[in-house]
Structures are given as C-alpha cells and as structure tokens.
C-alpha cells in the first residue's frame, strides 16, 4: 500500500508494513486470476481447471494466514498508529475478504465441471457479462488498495448496485426458462449458483472498497459518497 512506503525511522518497521502490503497484493493477484479462470471455465464448460484452482486456493489461504501473523506481530511489537494503524487493520479485513473471494471462485470453477455434463445454456452469456463486471470491480478495488486511492474505491462501491440488478434479472430469466423447459433445471441450478457466487464476490469487492476508504480517510464509507 502506498501509504506505508515512506521513511520510517525504524527501517525494519517500515519493511514489515511494506511486506504486509506485498502479501495483500500477491493475494489479490492470485484471487483475480482464479476468478478469471473460473468464469472462463464456466463459459467453456471445462472441468479441467479444478486442480489448478485448488492449488491456487491453497496459496491464497496460506497468504491469509501469513497476513494474520504479520498483523498480530505488528500490533504486539510495533503498536502502529495513525495511518499505519488504519493500514494494518484494513489489511486484516481485506485479507479475510480476499480469502472468501478465492473460496467463491473455487466454487464457480467446480460448477464449470458440473455444467460439462449438460448441453450449453443460452443464459451463460449473461453469467459471463456479470462475471466481467465483477472482475472489473475486483481489479479496480485492488488497484485502489495498492495506490491508496479513495475515488476509484468509492466508484466500485457504487457499482455494486449494477451487479445486484444484473444478478436479479438473471435469476428471474433463469426461473422463467426453467419453468418453460424442465430440461434446463439441471444446468440452470448450477448457473444460478455461479451467479450467486459472483454477486457475493461483488459484495466482497464492496467491503474492500470500504476498507480502502477507511484506511485513507479514517472515516467509514456510508451512503451518499465520501462522508
């Protein structure tokens, strides 16, 4: 995080904060790729990425443990204050959210395998579009985190409404399709779970946006912008 990259008098302390930021950046990168691959697999109805996704998830989990250790250490040994305090607290929250996103991406990848058993479903396109928005959200909020930039974080926070709207539409249309054609119930359920997981990832991106806002401004992000 940009905030920590300034000259602490105690060099080792500054380095520990930088390492925390680096861990988060690596976690974010892993989770982003995981999600991209999972959505692509759903679109292709491809079961083959399961082992890869699983390996990445193990890495993400290990990083989360590492972040927790670092935060605990910083509190116990450095007693961070002001921006350092807010950055450390935010790192802990963001790591929790990223771990959850990794989990959800894994679930999506697993659904890709299930969908391989069925013929292609037209609504997959809408899942792909929803996925593209959520990936964009995640990427933008991770960039906002690494550059400690509030404005894009607030934008991501507001864009969650669009995700919810698209998700609701997708659910409605899927239900209608399943009512008309009971043959769609099998793959439809998997599509619905994928959509639900994407919507949840959108929520985690929103949480991360809130953490970035708090980290930079020291105030919570509430309805009606920057307050």
């Amino acid at each position: 995080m940009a905030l920590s990259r300034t000259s602490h008098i105690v060099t080792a302390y500054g380095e520990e904060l930088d390492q925390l930021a680096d861990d988060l950046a690596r976690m974010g990168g892993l989770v982003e790729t995981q999600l991209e691959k999972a959505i692509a697999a759903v679109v292709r109805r491809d079961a083959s990425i399961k082992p890869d996704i699983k390996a990445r998830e193990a890495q993400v989990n290990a990083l989360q443990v590492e972040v927790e250790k670092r935060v605990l250490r910083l509190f116990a040994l450095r007693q961070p204050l002001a921006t350092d305090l807010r950055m450390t607290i935010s790192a802990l929250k963001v790591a929790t959210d990223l771990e959850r996103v990794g989990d959800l991406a894994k679930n999506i990848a697993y659904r890709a395998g299930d969908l391989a058993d069925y013929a292609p479903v037209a609504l997959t396109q809408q899942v792909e579009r929803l996925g593209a928005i959520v990936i964009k959200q995640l990427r933008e909020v991770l960039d906002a985190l690494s550059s400690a930039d509030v404005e894009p974080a607030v934008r991501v926070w507001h864009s969650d409404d669009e995700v919810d709207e698209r998700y609701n539409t997708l659910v409605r249309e899927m239900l209608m399709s399943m009512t008309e054609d009971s043959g769609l119930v099998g793959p439809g359920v998997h599509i619905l779970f994928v959509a639900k997981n994407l919507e949840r990832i959108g929520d985690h991106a929103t949480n991360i946006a809130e953490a970035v806002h708090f980290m930079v401004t020291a105030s919570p992000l509430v309805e009606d912008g920057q307050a």
Partner: protein
Amino acid sequence: MTDTPLNPTPDLPIKVTARKVTVSYSGKQALHDVSIDIPDRSVTAFIGPSGCGKSTFLRCLNRMNDTIDGAVVGGSLTIDGQEINDKTIDPVVLRASVGMVFQKPNPFPKSIYDNVAYGPRIHGLALTRPELDEIVENALRKAGLWDEVSDRLNHPGTGLSGGQQQRLVIARAIAVNPEVILMDEPCSALDPIATARIEELIDELRENYCIIIVTHSMQQAARVSQHTAFFHMGHLVEYGPTEDIFTNPRDKRTQDYITGRFG
C-alpha cells in the same frame, strides 16, 4: 496551529486558558503564541520531540519559568479565569494550587509523614495534630500509598522504591488541595509495573483534578489522557481528543511524529 479547536471537548468546563503565550530564554524564543483551552477533571497530554516547548509551556502554568534567569513569558494565562502572571499573584500560593510532579521522584530528606505534612504546615491548613494526621492519611490514600507505608510513616521517604517515591510526591502535591496537577515525565524513571500503578492513579485522580502530563511515551499519552496536544519547534501544532490524534491526526507533522517517520 492547524485549524483544530482550542477546546476539544466543549462539554467539559475549562480550567486553564492560554492565549498567545510566548516564552523566550535570554532572547531566544522557545514558545510561539500558544493558545489552548484545557478542560477540568480530565487528563491532557503534551507530546512532541525534545525541545518542542511542551515542558516550557507546562512550566508556565505554575510560573516555574520565573526561577530561570533571562526567561520572559508573554501572553495571557488564566486558571479559573484568574490571570496567573498578574503581579498580585504570589507564586508560592499559586504553586500550592498547581502542583507539580517531576521526572525523577524528589522526596525531601525527611520522613514519609513529614514529606506529606510539609505543604499543609507551610500553608497553615491544619490547626491541630489530629487534623494534620488526617490530611496526611487522606493524601497518602488518594495517592494509593497508604496501605504500603501506614506502619512506617516515620521512615525516610528516600528509603521507598522509585514508584513509591513518585506516589509519595504525588501525595505531597495533593495534600495542599491543588486544582491542577502538572506531571513532567512522571514515569520515565519507573519500571512497567510501577508505571502502571501511576497511570492507574492518574486515572483515579482525574475525577477531582485537572491533570496535565508531559510524556515522551506516546503509548502512555494514549493510555492515560483524554486530550492530546502536539508541540513542535515551539508551536502548538495540533490539539484534540486523544483518540483522534492517535488514529487520524490532521497535521502531517503530527502524523510523522506519532508514526515514527522522518519529519
């Protein structure tokens, strides 16, 4: 100063008011135009690097700068609305109502009893021996020392441990019914347990006194104070509720200082 309010908690009554207080030592200005309102019945911490003016300002509050040759104090300083630099104010009387505790415990080379009784005797606060006994016991109780020394009041104060000596001088300050208690690095010579006891004592005393503490330990300022003022190069830079100063300081100089960055 950054546009921080003079009084961080407007619902508390103000005890000490400073307006444009300046101090210079032999022509060299050590304090520049300090204006601040310090609330009663709470702990206000002064923090800042060495030479920032925090102790200089603290010493204005009981006119300790009067004792330094070449020190010139300007501006207005009032306690309960009374200008303390007024010529009619007797510094000795002032120092009874504004007690002070120093970095190194400085008990008189007298018994524990006489250390505490010293001020009340000078100021004629007790007419009889039982009255004086009561004042001494009360002060020692308030300072959290009574149970440890009640059976050896005639022993020398200097024979106590560092932490006990510091509580003894706090008892000595309390014995003359002060309004304000100034503490200049009161724990820097104490171990962590003795420090914790003094901090607990400060927390109890704030119910009845206006306490102002100068400390180099930011953790201590965070633990014991409700308000914190940050001084830098003779200026009061930022003043506010302690929680705000340590989680979200407004001024970059405060930020750099409390996070340990190069300013």
